[in-house]
């Protein structure tokens, strides 16, 4: 009940902020404008619409995840509203979990809105609906959950500007970390190999959640890949949240 109260409050705070709607609006606007861009380029119209539409939804939902994640935790500490919560019989872990769930719900609403509008545009522009695209949104959602937990982790001990830089860095590292996995086959030295392994496993490999190329081509994701990716995402979210709780438990206000 306490976690739910904090989660609901987090959701309320997010949806009563105008920036939230602005970002959703831009997400929808750019996915709509994919049709205009498709008119200017040569190629498969439907593929171009999907490519640009999905990329814009991806970009704006990542923005919402990073900034609302950082803002909504840091603001509690900065504005001292956290005093009112933690002086009551609320465990600090409940605070972190409540914040996470509230943000996760906020993101699901934002993503659903953008995805629904995109599917509608796609239907209007091309005359058919590609349900495989829903898989893309599901995978994107898991990536966003990892980003929210990372932003909660950083904002539990750092300033918003640093937290934003750290979280965005993790986002980019996460999309390039797969290269370390390739490296380890090409490197011979034990130390270098260990280094490549370490980097590959310590950071979340966010490329695992990027299935844009296959869904745009209309290819389905294999069941074992689907299950392992979802498990991989869940593991990272749990690990990062556990670390956040550990830090938050020791923090003084």
């Amino acid at each position, binding site marked *: 009940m306490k976690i739910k*109260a904090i989660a609901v409050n987090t959701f*309320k705070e997010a949806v009563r902020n105008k920036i939230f709607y602005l970002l959703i609006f831009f997400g929808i606007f750019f996915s709509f404008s994919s049709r205009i861009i498709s008119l200017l380029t040569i190629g498969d119209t439907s593929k171009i619409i999907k490519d640009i539409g999905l990329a814009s939804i991806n970009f704006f939902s990542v923005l919402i995840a990073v900034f609302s994640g950082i803002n909504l935790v840091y603001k509690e500490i900065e504005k*001292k509203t956290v005093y009112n919560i933690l*002086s009551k*019989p609320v465990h600090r872990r409940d605070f972190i979990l409540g914040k996470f769930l509230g943000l996760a719900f906020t993101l699901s609403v934002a993503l659903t809105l953008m995805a629904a509008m995109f599917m509608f545009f796609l239907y209007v522009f091309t005359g058919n609906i590609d349900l495989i695209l829903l898989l893309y949104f599901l995978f994107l959602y898991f990536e966003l959950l990892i980003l929210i937990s990372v932003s909660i982790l950083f904002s539990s001990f750092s300033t918003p500007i640093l937290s934003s830089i750290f979280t965005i860095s993790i986002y980019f590292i996460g999309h390039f970390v797969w290269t370390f996995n390739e490296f380890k086959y090409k490197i011979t030295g034990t130390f270098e190999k260990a280094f490549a392994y370490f980097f590959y496993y310590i950071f979340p490999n966010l490329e695992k959640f990027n299935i844009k190329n296959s869904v745009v081509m209309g290819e389905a994701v294999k069941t074992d890949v689907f299950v392992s990716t979802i498990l991989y995402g869940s593991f990272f979210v749990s690990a990062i949240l556990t670390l956040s709780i550990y830090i938050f438990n020791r923090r003084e206000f």
Partner: protein
Amino acid sequence: MKALEVNELTKSFRSNFLFRNIDVLRSVNINVEEGSIYGFLGPNGAGKTTTIKCILGLIFPDSGSINVFGKPVESFSYRNKIGFLPESPYYYDYLTARETLRFSGRLFSIPGKEVEKRSDEILKLVGLNGKENIKLKKFSKGMLQRIGLAQALINDPHLVILDEPFTGLDPMGRKELRDIIIALKAEGRTVFFSSHILQDMEMIVDDVGIIVKGRISKEGKLRELVGETVKYHEITVLGLEEHILKEKGYDYTGIGKKIMIKLEDRANLNDAFKFIEKSGGECISVSRISRTLEDIFIQEIEK
């Protein structure tokens, strides 16, 4: 049973410069009797808020123990019995007064219906009835203080802790807050509040603890502390010329026709009466001036 018992509490913070430790609380001992109003007095930076944060588990003491109604603060369940109003409270300004109370109630796991019922009572007590559906961003400072107090009472607390509740309130607001604190005591609650506004404290508290530089320098019943010495006696007279008193060597102050004679030694009272009568003056009143909390406070700081 004691409502709050703080024993040998110490707390230091690491300064960013040269990593030196700054001792904020050196040895704090507080004893708050159940059902009393306890005033926690100290100049700015003496350690009042740090002590309160330790009691509420917002920061962790280096050593010492804190018990609330006999239970150590580590037990966590004690928080169900505490209501807390932070210093210059901040709330979610996108929530209305009623939503704020609903949210606070949920954090105590109070069932919805009970929260609604209790909210009505409390909003009336703090004078916010009729304003429950206004968002807090439109609230004045005084109104925010009231909603702060309201959320501190939502769980029907046995111990109410208020950090600098009088700061920023106008005289009317301060009077209303004093009345609320007295009403809380009448309901059987214990009230612990910190302040550096002496008059407000002197009017309502039963016990006082004075904290100076992280140490409790004086603690006890207010009446005993201020009443243990009479500072001087003051005789108010009419119909006397000032120069007569001056010649006699009296310490006096005159306002119009009224003159106040200050006598530090009680033994001189009779002589003074006789002198006034002989000189043709009329004695209106005699008052015993005790030490005030301010005198004790300044004396403790200057030690």
